[in-house]
């Protein structure tokens, strides 16, 4: 069941974003920013958690999950250590994703050569 939910919720988010891609002049980079901010907002309004409970990876794999991680990190850190938490929690919670992308991305630049599109 969790596979089906992940499939249709994740797929639906992608299909909706496809409308933005095709019908507006929004560049892909802007759409990514939009998704992350949306995730943070959903998380702040406590909508994200029940949603992720239902959809599993369908909610965490899309970039809104990244926004949620950032906000959740801030939220938890604020609860724990007050104002300093505002500056600590976000990157801490999303560290795996950012580090992995940067480290693997860097390694890729050592291993792979630029290739021509066909």
């Amino acid at each position, binding site marked *: 069941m969790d596979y089906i939910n992940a499939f249709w919720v994740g797929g639906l988010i992608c299909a909706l974003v496809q409308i933005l*891609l095709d019908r507006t*002049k929004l560049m*892909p980079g802007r759409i990514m920013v939009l998704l992350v901010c949306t995730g943070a907002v959903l998380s702040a309004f406590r909508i994200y958690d029940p949603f992720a409970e239902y959809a599993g990876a369908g909610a965490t794999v899309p970039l809104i999950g990244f926004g949620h991680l950032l906000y959740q990190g801030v939220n938890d850190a604020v609860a724990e250590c007050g104002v300093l938490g505002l500056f600590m929690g976000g990157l801490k919670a999303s560290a795996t994703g950012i580090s992995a992308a940067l480290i693997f991305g860097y390694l890729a630049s050592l291993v*792979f050569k*630029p*290739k*021509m*599109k*066909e």
Partner: protein
Amino acid sequence: MNERMGHQSIRFGEPVYIRSGASVAGKKEGEGPLGPCFDEIEKDPLAGEKTWEQAESALQHRAALRALDKAGIKNTDLRMIFAGDLLAQCTASAYNLAQLDVPVYGLFGACSTMGEALSLASMAVAGDFAEYAMALTSSHFASAEKEFRFPLAYGNQRPLSATWTVTGSGACVLSKVKSRAAVTGVTTGKIVDFGLKDSMNMGACMAPAACDTICTNLQDFGRQPEEYDRIITGDLGSVGQQILFDLLEKQGYDIKRQHLDCGMLIFDDAVQDTHAGGSGCGCSAVVFASYILPRIISGEWKRILFVPTGALMSKVSFAEGQTVPGIAQAVVVEHMEEKD
């Protein structure tokens, strides 16, 4: 006597002969409909160099040498070269020309540069300022994509109106020494801006400029479209072509029967998935040297109007939300009977 026609055109007193045309194209271009026409097809996208930018220079260098060779002259016989490309500050031309050891004027007219180069080279020869002058341009898919759009490995979808930058370079040697093809007149294009901002729909950005230059050419020379066997635009693509037809119709001209577009000639969208067509300074240059020029020399076409089109924007102007102005440079090329 050279003669000024209207406000924007020149008719040369003596024809400026095209002594030779040479083209070097990339692999994808070689697989296209014009594959058999190119002088050389470079299968390696890096052309044996280290970077895309160097590869573009290398293609340009080979096109220049081939054109010299075909014209039967040495680089030292050239009085000047008019050259340009798509890279920032025309570096592809600069690094190529540094090796050629010939006086140079570097040009930027975006994808219209071959029209600009041919016009200026013709004027230089017609004015007796050069015995031999060369027009030379190039573009490279990867260097253009990297500079203007996305890194090549970045995943994105191209809209149907997008064009595919041609990898290749074309060169022509102009002179008063007779041959079967000659430039007999030029119309200098004005920058036309209809306020469009979509850099993924260059055809629509450039079509108004093409329309303006074609109309001006017809009026300045007092000709009807039928007096040209072909009117060949640079890289409007299928979308731009439709718009050009509509715009010209409003001006009372119908060029549907004689219109061709270099961008649409060079690729077959059905097989090659290039969408609206080819583009880039190399596009009109290689098509002119490989496909158009031989037909004029053979006499299949007696007189054509060659109108390369360019979209004059930069990465910065795009980021700052500016419009994409267009330009089109027209060159009248005619078949010459050998009388002697």
